[in-house]
């Protein structure tokens, strides 16, 4: 039984331990075949191991969907000094709550995946960057690390194979931006969590100016299964370009909110109406954010017949992101929710780039005015102008993320604009703007 709901159409690979307290322990994880993949991996040639991950087609689960095996292959093969693997457990994207569950139920799954990755990439230290608020998951992961050390699975001479990998938990202190990979590296180094300009890319000069790879928790959780069963096995689910299973974290106005592990490409309608029991209180669907608050909003109509994989959602004008599905019913006050999302980005902007620092604050201010019924059609024009100016002009994509909900709302919910600012005089909606 999973936490808090399960469904028979789920394919439970990563989540099979959810709801079973025993899985947290080393013994419990071993009973499910845990650490067999590590043993196998340490006996494999590193390049062969990376090829196996490549062949699985696994794509990063932190939002961007970059192929994991390819990313791993960027790391230097002949290290000139220390190399690092960082686990991105900063999960702060509004709507996302999958990494927390993975860490609290299956900490050893993540640690095993990280050890395999560190071996493949010749990294001798793994840092797990957990957002500061996650005390509970951090304690569970911390205990699991100590268990792994005691069992000779981490530290010096792992499993007597002559491989040394240190694993250290590192707690953040409250800053969404630290989830951005270069900001995370700065934060780990004891600095303000501000994104760095790329290049240099992390695989060349990352944490402590050494070659570094950053992976999301869920990405690494998939690794032991792929190593044990092979890349082809992982491809039995999902689509050609989006293979495998993925955690879908559903929140908002559905009857049964929760985490569901599904093959990528699963019908979005079935997720909402079958698994999650439809919209609460017999209401109707108004809108869905398919991948966390940073991606464009989709209307009920756009969701119909939509397959939940990276390509299909992109084609529909949004992004699958972290597969954090936020569902809104027909009584949702959209301007209020869009305003709240923009306030979040204004609050979390690290302040380095003027368009982001100023633009997000302006957007929040204008949206507050519109929400209060004091907006004008010119306000909508200004919003569109700001959206344009913060998209693609900054060091990281946080400001683009702030623009996504605003643009898609203006474009797709004209009745809101009519009602709130009394008409759309002068409002020019750029074609395809909401997909930016």
């Amino acid at each position, binding site marked *: 039984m999973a936490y808090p709901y399960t469904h028979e159409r789920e394919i439970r690979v990563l989540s099979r331990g959810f709801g079973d307290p025993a899985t947290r322990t080393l013994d419990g994880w071993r009973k499910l075949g845990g650490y067999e993949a590590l043993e196998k991996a340490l006996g494999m040639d590193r390049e062969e191991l990376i090829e196996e991950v490549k062949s699985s087609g696994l794509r990063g689960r932190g939002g961007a969907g970059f192929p994991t095996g390819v990313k791993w292959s960027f790391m230097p093969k002949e290290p000139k000094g220390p190399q690092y693997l960082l686990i991105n457990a900063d999960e*702060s994207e509004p709507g996302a709550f999958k990494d927390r569950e993975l860490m609290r139920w299956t900490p050893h799954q993540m640690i095993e995946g990280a050890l395999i990755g560190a071996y493949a990439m010749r990294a001798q230290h793994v840092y797990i960057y957990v957002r500061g608020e996650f005390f509970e998951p951090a304690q569970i992961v911390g205990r699991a690390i100590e268990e792994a050390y005691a069992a000779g699975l981490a530290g010096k001479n792992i499993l007597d194979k002559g491989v040394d990998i240190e694993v250290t938990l590192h707690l953040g202190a409250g800053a969404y931006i630290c989830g951005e990979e270069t900001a995370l590296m700065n934060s780990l180094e004891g600095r303000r969590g501000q994104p760095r300009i790329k290049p240099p890319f992390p695989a060349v000069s990352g944490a402590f100016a050494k070659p570094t790879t950053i992976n999301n928790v869920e990405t690494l959780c998939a690794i032991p299964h792929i190593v044990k069963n092979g890349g082809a096995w992982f491809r039995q689910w999902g689509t050609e370009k989006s293979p495998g299973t993925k955690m879908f974290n559903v929140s908002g106005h559905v009857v049964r909110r929760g985490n569901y592990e599904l093959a990528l490409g699963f019908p979005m309608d079935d997720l909402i109406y079958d698994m999650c029991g439809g919209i609460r209180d017999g209401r109707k669907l108004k809108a869905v954010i398919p991948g966390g608050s940073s991606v464009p909003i989709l209307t009920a109509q756009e969701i119909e017949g939509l397959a939940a994989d990276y390509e299909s959602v992109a084609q529909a004008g949004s992004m699958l992101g972290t597969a954090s599905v936020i569902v809104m019913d027909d009584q949702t006050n959209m301007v209020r929710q869009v305003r709240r999302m923009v306030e979040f980005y204004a609050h979390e902007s690290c302040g380095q780039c003027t368009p982001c620092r100023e633009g997000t604050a302006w957007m929040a201010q204008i949206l507050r005015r519109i929400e209060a019924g004091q907006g004008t059609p010119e306000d909508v024009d200004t919003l569109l102008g700001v959206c344009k100016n913060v998209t693609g002009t900054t060091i990281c994509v946080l400001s683009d993320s702030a623009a996504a909900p605003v643009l898609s709302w203006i474009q797709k919910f004209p009745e809101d604009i009519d009602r709130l600012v009394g008409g759309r005089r002068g409002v020019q909606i750029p074609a395809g703007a909401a997909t930016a």
Partner: protein
Amino acid sequence: MKNPGWAGETGEFDLTESEVRGAGYVGPQPTEGWEHGGVNAVPYVHADSDPDAPLFQGPYRKRLDTIMSRYPNKRAALLPVLNLAHEIRGYLSQESMDAVAHELEEAPAAVRGVATFYTMYNRRPVGRHLVQVCTNVACNLCGGHEVFEAFLQHTGTEPGQISEDGEFTVMEVECLGACGFPTAVQVNGRYFENVDVAGVPDLLARLKRHGVDPVDGAAEGATSTSTSNGEGTKSKSKSKSTGGEG
């Protein structure tokens, strides 16, 4: 008493709260911390902190040394060491930050510049229970803002203020990463899930009585196969108020 604000109350779930929270697995937290990479896992917000406690002495000195050993340079230990100071005193004063700078051989201004970037550091004392209510989109859709208002109303405070009895400080926070269990509320080192307006008075009463530890069997009809370290109902001996003027 009903067990308010626990995810186990929705869903097809029949585990105890301790089992869900992993209290039995984690066990009692050693003050000197764990030995290896788990050293940073010890909570740094709790009701027992003392604003006048000496920094980095006894077991905390040992933890500081272990933390330092996990990083390639001293600077990288900055956040963990700030966390440690925060845990000991419950907030970060100018003096604590300077002490951290001294330990790490960094300029005090550099440490302050970093500390002020992060939102979890309280820069003045807070109530014994720091109640942080998520009002971000997923929670807000299900009434997050109203829950926040209810906490303010029932504690008789303004955001960030300490309640008269020194028990509570209520704040609005961004997404806590528990969006499937709205409204998510963090109290010190513990999450409370599915908190609704009606459950707020119960939750405040529970916090006053039991602190944030799991209270197994308190839920109506819950089984009592507790795997916790049996400390669910322990009351904190040191109920020192951390100042009332806010």
